[in-house]
């Protein structure tokens, strides 16, 4: 090929590349515009359902597949951003659309990211039918799935999950203390008797979570046992959480034990004692040494 031929070949190649690039950009623009239009069309239906409107199957069935996908995508996207009745309406819609059932199947995927995403969704859906799936996923080999399962059990809020959640703090695949504490705290009917039992556990993480939760639930009736953890527990973390719990409970009978525990306590514990005494309303009781 001579010089002119090479130049012509290069120019044709460049023109072809440009044409392909333009067609990709144009196709993406068309797809985006179509998506935006579909989202705009289904939005009033979705917001109407959120506002307490009935889920009209015929209206949804009348949408074309593109619009139905847009409806599901928007419902999925809004679910973690809402709470209250609107969230319940959204979860009901997704359940009827088969999303909960599909997520249950995806929790068996080989891909950890797919399992984690599905687990997260099951929790956000708050669907009581997902309870057993989530309890099983507390033992998943991947931490992100276990954490999502714990959070999900908190969202569902069934007290049956309290003991398994406490159990998930131990063993070869433990879940962190704060993840479990946050999950159990969302279970409004959490049985205090189960937490009380946890204070006597051989496991320091279980004692840490239960003392933390008794503080968050402001369980005044258990303050003597929390004081016991502050004074006698071999774990500094449990003692520090006990001090914080006493601050949250706010009982004046904790003042003397807090002050006498200050002595040669580690810095982390001292900081919590100072915080607790302020919460109880006696900042002046903080020892000056």
């Amino acid at each position, binding site marked *: 090929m001579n010089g002119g031929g090479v130049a012509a070949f290069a120019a044709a190649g460049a023109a072809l590349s440009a044409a392909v690039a333009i067609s990709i950009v144009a196709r993406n623009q068309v797809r985006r515009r179509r998506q935006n239009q579909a989202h705009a069309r289904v*939005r009033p239906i979705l917001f109407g359902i959120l*506002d307490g409107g009935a889920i009209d199957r015929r209206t949804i069935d009348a949408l074309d597949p593109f619009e139905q996908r847009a409806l599901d995508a928007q419902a999925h996207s809004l679910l*973690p*951003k*809402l709470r*209250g009745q*609107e*969230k319940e309406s959204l979860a009901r819609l997704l359940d009827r659309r088969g999303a909960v059932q599909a997520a249950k199947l995806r929790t068996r995927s080989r891909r950890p990211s797919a399992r984690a995403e599905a687990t997260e969704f099951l929790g956000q859906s708050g669907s009581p039918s997902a309870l057993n799936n989530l309890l099983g996923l507390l033992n998943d080999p991947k931490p992100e799935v276990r954490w999502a399962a714990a959070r999900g059990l908190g969202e569902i809020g069934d007290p049956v999950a309290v003991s398994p959640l406490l159990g998930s703090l131990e063993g070869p695949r433990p879940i962190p203390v704060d993840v479990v504490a946050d999950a159990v705290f969302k279970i409004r009917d959490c049985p205090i008797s189960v937490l009380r039992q946890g204070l006597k556990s051989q496991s320091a993480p279980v004692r840490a979570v239960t003392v933390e939760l008794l503080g968050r639930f402001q369980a005044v009736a258990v303050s003597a046992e929390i004081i016991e953890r502050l004074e006698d527990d071999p774990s500094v973390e449990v003692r520090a959480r006990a001090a914080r719990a006493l601050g949250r409970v706010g009982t004046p009978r904790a003042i003397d034990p807090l002050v006498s525990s200050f002595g040669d306590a580690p810095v982390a514990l001292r900081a919590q004692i100072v915080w607790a005494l302020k919460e109880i309303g006696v900042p002046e009781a903080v020892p000056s040494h």
Partner: protein
Amino acid sequence: MKTVLVVDDDPDIRELITWKLTQAGYTTLAVGDGEAALKVATSGGVAGAAPDLILVDWMMPLMTGIEVCQALRDNPATERIPIILLTAKAQEAEVERGFAAGVDDYIVKPFSPREMLSRIQAVLARSEART
């Protein structure tokens, strides 16, 4: 008719809030960042009048909701506009920070649009009672 300026970088939230407020009879303006919010609030975005209330998200690019709030409070033209902060930060220290910056109320995310509406109505009623 009262006007509410909605400031949130999440289009889902912006659209939902706008819809809810419109249904409740409010005029709404919605923008996706703090700088646009300041422009609208200071230039009289609705027929030359400042919004009656601003609902602003805490976590946004360019300017945070707290920075928007401080800028509004520093400007004599906007210092009296009631502000509600939408936030995922519900810790005591962060709530205190919001009130110190001049917010009138806050709504914790994930949020309930119904509760949001009640809070907006209450803040507007308090604001009217003051003037």
